[in-house]
Each structure stands twice: as C-alpha cells, then as structure tokens.
C-alpha cells in the first residue's frame, strides 16, 4: 500500500456492536456528561416492539428519558414543523442529549434538532457544507437495521436540503442484535445498495486515502458476503448485524469524500420520482464503473480486494483486476433478481428529465461530477444492466 502525499480522515463515532450493546448507552452518556436524552423513533419502530426493548435497556441506570417521541414521519428527510416542535420539547424538558432509534428521517430529524438546540437563529441558514461551527449535543444512534444506508455519515437532509458538517456524526453508534431485526428483502437490498454505493464511490476515487479505504473495504466486503444470505433468509441474525455494521462503516467512509456520480444521481432521481434511493443507485453502480473504464479512468484494484479478499485478489492478474471487479459487481446486482430494477426504462423514468437530474447531481457533488458525464451515464443506464 502506498502512502499518499497527504490525506485527511476524520471519524467521530464510537461503534458498539453486538450483544447487550444498548446497555452501554448510559455509560456513554455519562462519559459525555449527559443524563437526560430526548429519544426519537418512528411509529414503525414502536410497532416492531423496539422502543420497549430500548427503554428496558436503560432500567437500573441514572438515565431518565426526557421524552420519547415516536411519531416521526416516514419521509426521506426531516420535516421542519416537526423539528420545531421537538426543539420546544427538548427545551421544555431540559434534555441534554439526543438518541435516535431507527434510520432515515429519524436520524435526519435528530441531527436537525441537534443543530437547532445548539445554535441560534433559523436552522435553514445552516444548510450546506461546513456551516456549523460549534460542537453539538451528544447524539447516539441506535440502528434498527435496513433503513437509509448512510445514517452514520456527516450529512443530514432537512426539508430536502443537505446539511454537511463533521459535527453531525453520531457520537456513538449502537448496533445491538436485539434491535436489528428482520425486514423485508426489498428493504435490505435497497439499504445495502445505498451503502455499497457510498463505500465504492469513496474508495474508487483515483487518489487513495488509506483510512478511508479500510473502512470502505470492510463495508463492501460485509455487504458482498452477507446481502445474498439475508435476501434469501431475511431473519438471519448474524447477516443482518453484519450489514448494519457495513452501513455504519460505509457512512463514515462516505463522509470523508464529496458524493460521487451514482450517489448524486440516485438522490436526484429519487427526489423527483419518489422511488427509494437504493433502487435508483443499484444498477447505476456497475454502469458508472464501466463508464469510467470507457473513459480510460483507472479504478484501483482495492475494489477487487474488498470484494474477494486476499486469496481471490492474488489469483487475478493485475491488468484484469478492474474488469473482474466490475463483472463481479454486475453479477452481484443481477443476482438480487427482482428486488431492484435493472434500467431507467424499467423504472419508468422520463427521458426528458435527464438534463435536470444531471444538473442537480453536478450541483450536489460540488461540480466534481460534470453534467456531461451524468448525461452519458444516464443514457447508458436507460437500457440498464439486463
């Protein structure tokens, strides 16, 4: 492995995975000088009986739950009216920390509340990259398995606007096997595709960042080895826990680079069509790598290493590593069968909107991705990977 001339890597969260991980929450809170968290969850989480398990895990500790709000709307982002209500609740109860159980909008909302209670003024003024200048309140994320795929990253979506700041990392990520329960195959596949996209795009950049590669490699490997098993048997405990770990790591490695072409396009398409992000990203991923090879851009062999491990990696000659890894990835997405669409045509995306998607994606990736590339990729993706 080469040492790059310079690199930056930041990871805030402490990951606590496995049996009885939730029982560590009060110690973590105490270490951050907090003892009254505001707990957020969606109604679905309560219906699955997970909030009850969470409350029980805090028995016999000093932690008083300031309030348990389990009516977070199941959107793709946090909603400002709810956010304002929660800020009020947070202040009225004198809470000093935030715990989010679940994923997707719950985490976005928790991050939003955290920005609002730690900063003054209108929260929308903090939209954008690195606009938050102050450390926020302690924030613990309790995963419930397949949700958004990038909850552990440093981004939050509030009312459709992207907030990015290193202070938005969760302080602690709890991956407790009681909380990570079976979901539908569809959900598993979609969340995994988002995480896989985040991980691959963060390690397939031309410049290497050794720490980022490590996180991304673990994420890719966990997803590659466990997703098919979980899809076959959605109740698999170890499989689900491994995937939850993969999401956590993908989120962290994704936070250290600007979003890539697939991630940005996926978000743009999902926002317009209302389809889940994972569905949009799944088949775009191998296509984007192929598109890059077509443009004579190199893709580092580490991707193959992440997919196959040491033995498989060594067996493939150096020249073939890129093509082999793309083939494997393509096969992998194809193996998911009917769970994910295989082309934009199949998704019934309108062709006349491509330009708009390309523009949005380019904007989101801070012009790192050009509109022209996006258009080319979208044109390829029209026919898809079938």
């Amino acid at each position: 492995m080469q040492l790059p001339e310079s690199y930056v890597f930041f990871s805030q969260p402490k990951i606590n995975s496995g049996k009885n991980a939730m029982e560590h929450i009060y110690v973590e809170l105490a270490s951050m000088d907090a003892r009254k968290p505001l707990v957020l969850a969606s109604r679905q989480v309560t219906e699955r009986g997970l909030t009850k398990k969470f409350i029980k895990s805090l028995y016999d500790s000093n932690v008083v739950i300031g309030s348990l709000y389990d009516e977070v709307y199941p959107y793709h982002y946090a909603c400002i009216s709810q956010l304002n209500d929660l800020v009020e609740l947070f202040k009225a109860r004198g809470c000093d920390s935030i715990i989010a159980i679940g994923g997707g909008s719950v985490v976005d909302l928790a991050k939003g509340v955290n920005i609002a209670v730690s900063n003054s003024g209108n929260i929308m003024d903090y939209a954008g990259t690195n606009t938050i200048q102050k450390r926020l309140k302690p924030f613990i994320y309790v995963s419930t398995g397949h949700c958004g795929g990038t909850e552990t990253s440093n981004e939050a979506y509030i009312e459709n606007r992207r907030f990015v700041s290193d202070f938005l990392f969760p302080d602690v990520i709890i991956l407790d096997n009681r909380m990570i329960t079976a979901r539908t195959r569809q959900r598993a596949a979609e969340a995994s595709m988002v995480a896989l996209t985040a991980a691959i795009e963060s390690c397939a950049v031309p410049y290497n960042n050794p720490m980022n590669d490590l996180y991304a490699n673990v994420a890719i490997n966990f997803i590659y080895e466990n997703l098919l098993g979980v899809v076959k048997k959605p109740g698999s405990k170890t499989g689900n826990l491994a995937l939850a770990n993969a999401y956590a790591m993908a989120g962290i490695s994704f936070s250290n680079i600007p979003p890539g072409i697939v991630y940005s396009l996926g978000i743009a398409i999902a926002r317009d069509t209302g389809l889940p992000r994972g569905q949009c990203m799944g088949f775009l991923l191998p296509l984007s790598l192929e598109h890059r090879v077509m443009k004579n851009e190199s893709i580092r062999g580490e991707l193959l290493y992440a997919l196959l491990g040491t033995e498989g990696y060594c067996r493939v000659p150096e020249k073939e590593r890129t093509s082999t890894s793309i083939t494997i990835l393509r096969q992998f997405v194809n193996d998911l069968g009917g769970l994910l669409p295989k082309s934009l045509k199949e998704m019934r995306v309108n062709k006349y909107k491509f330009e708009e998607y390309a523009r949005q994606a380019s904007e989101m990736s801070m012009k790192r991705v050009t509109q022209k590339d996006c258009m080319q990729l979208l044109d390829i993706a029209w026919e898809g990977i079938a």
Partner: protein
Amino acid sequence: MKEITGTSNKVLEVDLTTQKFSVFEIPVKDRKMYLGGKGLGLKLLYDRMPVGVDPLGPDNIIAFMMGVLMGTGASCSGRFAAVTKSPLTGIMSSASCGGPFGMALKTSGWDGLLIKGKSAKPVYLYIDSKGVQFRDAKAIWGKEIRKAQDVVLKEGAGAIVIGPAGENLVRFANICSGHRFLGRGGMGAVLGAKNLKAVVAKGQEYKILPANSKKFEKTKKRSTKYINQNPITSNQYRVFGTNSHVMLSNKAGILPVRNFTGGSHGEAAKVSGERIVAKHNPKFSTCKPCTILCGHKATFNGQERSVPEFETTGLFGPNLEIFDPNAISDFNEICTDMGMDTISAGGTIAWAMEATEKGLFKSDLKFGSPKEVAQALIDIGKAKGIGKELGMGSRWLSKKYGGEDFAMHVKGLEIAAYDPRGAFGQGLSFAVANRGGCHLSSAFFSLEAYLHMYQPYTTWGKASYTEFAENCFDVVNSLHICQFTAFPVFLEPPIIKMLPTVVLNISLSTMAPLAVWFMDLSVWSRYWSSVTGHRLNMWKMLSIGKRIHVLERYMNTREGIARKDDTLPGRLLNEGRVSDPKHRTVPLEKMLPKYYKVRGYDENGIPKDRTLKKLKIEKK
C-alpha cells in the same frame, strides 16, 4: 344549413411544425368502446403518443374532443373535453369546459381536434368546415386573455385562447373559452410551448340532429325533470352557485383554512354564496345550453365580474385566511386575464406563505394579507421575480425548497378546496384520481359531508363507491355532459329519495355495488344511444367508464405512476385539523388495498394483465 345526423365522426389532426393538417375518421368500434369526449381523446393519444414525451415538447399532443351530445341541445351538454400530457404532473390530464368553442367546432363539422408539433413563431388556428388555416398571432401574442379573445372572436363563433401565463409556460396555465376554462393540469402551457395562442372555430355551419329524435326528446324531458326536481341543481346551485359549498364545508369541517391546517373558520360566512347573493347582486352567466345555471355574474368593487367558483373562493379565501369577497374576486380576475388555474395558483401561494413563515422560502407573502397575493399572481403570469418559480407549481417548489408535507398536491396537481380529513372517501378519491388531486374524479365529499349518505369518518364502502363514481364521471366526461347532472341522476330516482338516511347509510356502506340499482343512470346511456343510433345500456356504459378509467391509469403507470404516487400530502396523513379535537387523519393505507382490489390493480397499483384483457385494452 347543412345537417349532421348523430356525429360527423371527423377529427382534425394538426401538425404545427409542418403547418399541415389532416382529417381522419374514427372506427365505429372505438366510438362504441370509448363513447367520445375524454374517453375517445385518451384512446387517440394512447395510439399516437409514445411513452415519456416532454409535455412541453413538440411530441406532446393535445386533443380537444367534443362529445356526441354537443350541439344536440341535450340538457347541460354545452361542454367539451381536452386531453393531454400535463406539464404540471407529467402524466395524462383531462379537463372539461363550457363556453362557446365546443359548439363552434362541432357545428363547423368536426368531432375533435388533435394538435401536435411546435410552430416556429406564434400562430393561431382558424377552423371552418373546409379545414384549418394557420394565421400569424403577432398581434395578439402577449395580450391578456379577454383582450386577445375579443380580437379573435371577430372571426368565428367560438375560440380557445391562452393568456400570458400560458405563453410563459406557467405550469398551471389554463385555456379559456368564453368565460369558462379548461382549468387543470396546465394545458395553457402546452399550447404556449407549441407557440399557439388561440384556436378559432367559425361554427354555425352544420346543425346536429339526433339519430332517434323521439327517444332523445323523451330522455331530455326526463333529464330536465330530474334537474328541476333536485334541490341541489334547481335551488342550491341555481341561486347561490357553487359558493353554497362554503357554509356546508365549514359546518362539516372540510373547508381548507390556512393551508389546510384547520377545517372550519368563524369568518367563513363572509365569503359564502349566501352573502354574495345578499350583497353583490348576482345574475346568471352560464354555459349554453344549461338547465342548472350555476354560473353567475355579480358586482365586486363596483364592476360586474364573474362570481368566483367555490374552489377559487376556498383556496384564495379561507385557505389564505382572506375573508373579503372583493379581494377574492380581484384574484379571480387576475387569474382570468393571465390564464391561470385558480386551484393550483391558490395552493401554490398557500405553500409559499407557509414556507415563508417557516423560513424555507423568501417572499413577502403572508397569510391574511391580500395585497401581496395580487402582486404575486401578476408576477406568476408574467414570469417575473419570484413569480418565475411560483409558476412551477407547489410540487416543484417543495422539491427544491423543502416543505413537502405541506405542499398540498397529489401527483403534482394541487388538491381542491376540500379537506379530506373530514371526508375519508374524498381522501381516497384524491389519492387515486388519475390526473392528481382532483375533486371531480368521484366528488365523494358531497355524499359524505353535505348529503350524509356516507359516514365521513369511516372507511366502509368507500373504495367501491369511489370506483363506481369514477366510472360514472368518466362516462359523463365522455358524453359530454355537465358533471352536476349526476346529482339529479343519483338522487332523484324514487327509491333513493324515499329511503330514510339511516337505511341509505347502512346499505351504501355495506352493499355499495347494489346501490347502482337504485340510481337511474339510463338517462345518460339513452342520450348517447338516441344521438348515435347505436345500442347502449347503462351496464355496458358503466363498463365503458371502467375501461376509460383503467386506460388512463395504465397510460399513467407507463409514465412511472405506481402506489408510491397514490398518496396524500403528509399533512393530511399525519396532522389533525385544528378544528377537530380528535385530530383525525386520513386512514389511506386501509382503503388503498381495497380500492386496488375493486379496480383490478396489483398491489403496486398497476392494472393487472387480466384486467386489461377483460376491458379489451391492448397492452403496449
């Protein structure tokens, strides 16, 4: 004058790019399968338009279809339909309109008009029995609707015209015919994108005669009798217009207040139809021919103007916390001049007000302040300043700026002025309506909140009635006749009239399919068969309604519509009304699967192959 018996069966197809036109005839089979009007328009578009065309591009086709009743003098038949792919929603949109254009085109000998392509410079069309002339629209381009209409109407009996909003591609621009509008779905922008300012029809060249005049006269007599008997059509609408809904809605808690946060308001009486009758001196001003006479003119701010319809009043009034009929009339006039749909404009402005309040959007709009609204409407029409973005509709705005939970639209089309949290069936109907948040697809609110034939806060029987009413109204829009005639047809037959409300309530909720037996839908089927001379009974007619509805749904699913789109704005699903102490929300998830089952859709809301085959819709 020459005569046409039944229908001329000739449709004009105009290509603006090449400035050529052709005439084609519709096979009898299609006529029998789709009746005419909206149904036939959809079928023609289904055959001609590929999937995924840009609504504002040259490939989009807009069809103006006259039904078979137009020109025959059947009661309330002065209406025509338009079908196109909507730039606001990106899916099929259909609209119904009164006014003189329909009659003029039909009496020029044409059953329909399809327009495609894009003209290089602004033009307008002149149509007579010989065909189409392409004329330069330089003189009227940029002019407000009424001024432009005055110019073109010198050449013919009827015209459709777009305003500056249509020219500026405001996504909810409408098309005007006389003083009625093809309101919803942004059809004005479709014409604007084609550089087509107006279509004039010479008219009065042919006389339309029914094939079986004896049967026709008999049916007309019965229909007129029903209309004159029914208290809604003969009294409520005739005297107070559609604004009679204000107090009914307020009482039932389904009036939109402050961007759908409250269901009723203490000051609602100030904008009610009763108050307008008492203070503004209204006179009739209706479509021709009409028996109901719901349209009125009255004096506002010292001028004689059209009385705003209920949707306009509701969405520009209580929904913006404005309770001044004069101000609402001002907004209505601006929308008329600019050529904009008042429902979508009202919904979009309400979104902008709330988003501004919450810091998501920058504007000077605020609830209860009419001055800024008037300015914003002008800006939208002229695509100036914030108007440029407001003209994209609330879906586009909320996707860009956030606030999707209070952007009150379904599939991009802003919902009309009925709060479905006080009428669950209307909630389902909004969610599954083909063109988006449309109140006319089943008009369930009237049965739930006004007539109390259904319990508003239950889900019983809602799916089946929604399906039934949608089929009926697709038939109504294909004949083409006024939708208000459904009240007398549904309610006047003796069984329904005699049954006590409680019994009716229970029987409709539990045995909805049987309710059809109580109603006298044969008025409509007899109208069609007497004019065309083909046989049609009411059962077959209902199955045609079903075919039209499923065809439209199928066309929409090809554009990407699925269960994910059959939803309501977050506010209606998650937040209760301020006026409702129980904070009830629409239990949509409970009703949707039942509706899909009744309709023959799969669980993702896509018509099953079996359903399509049964309805003889060719899969593409």
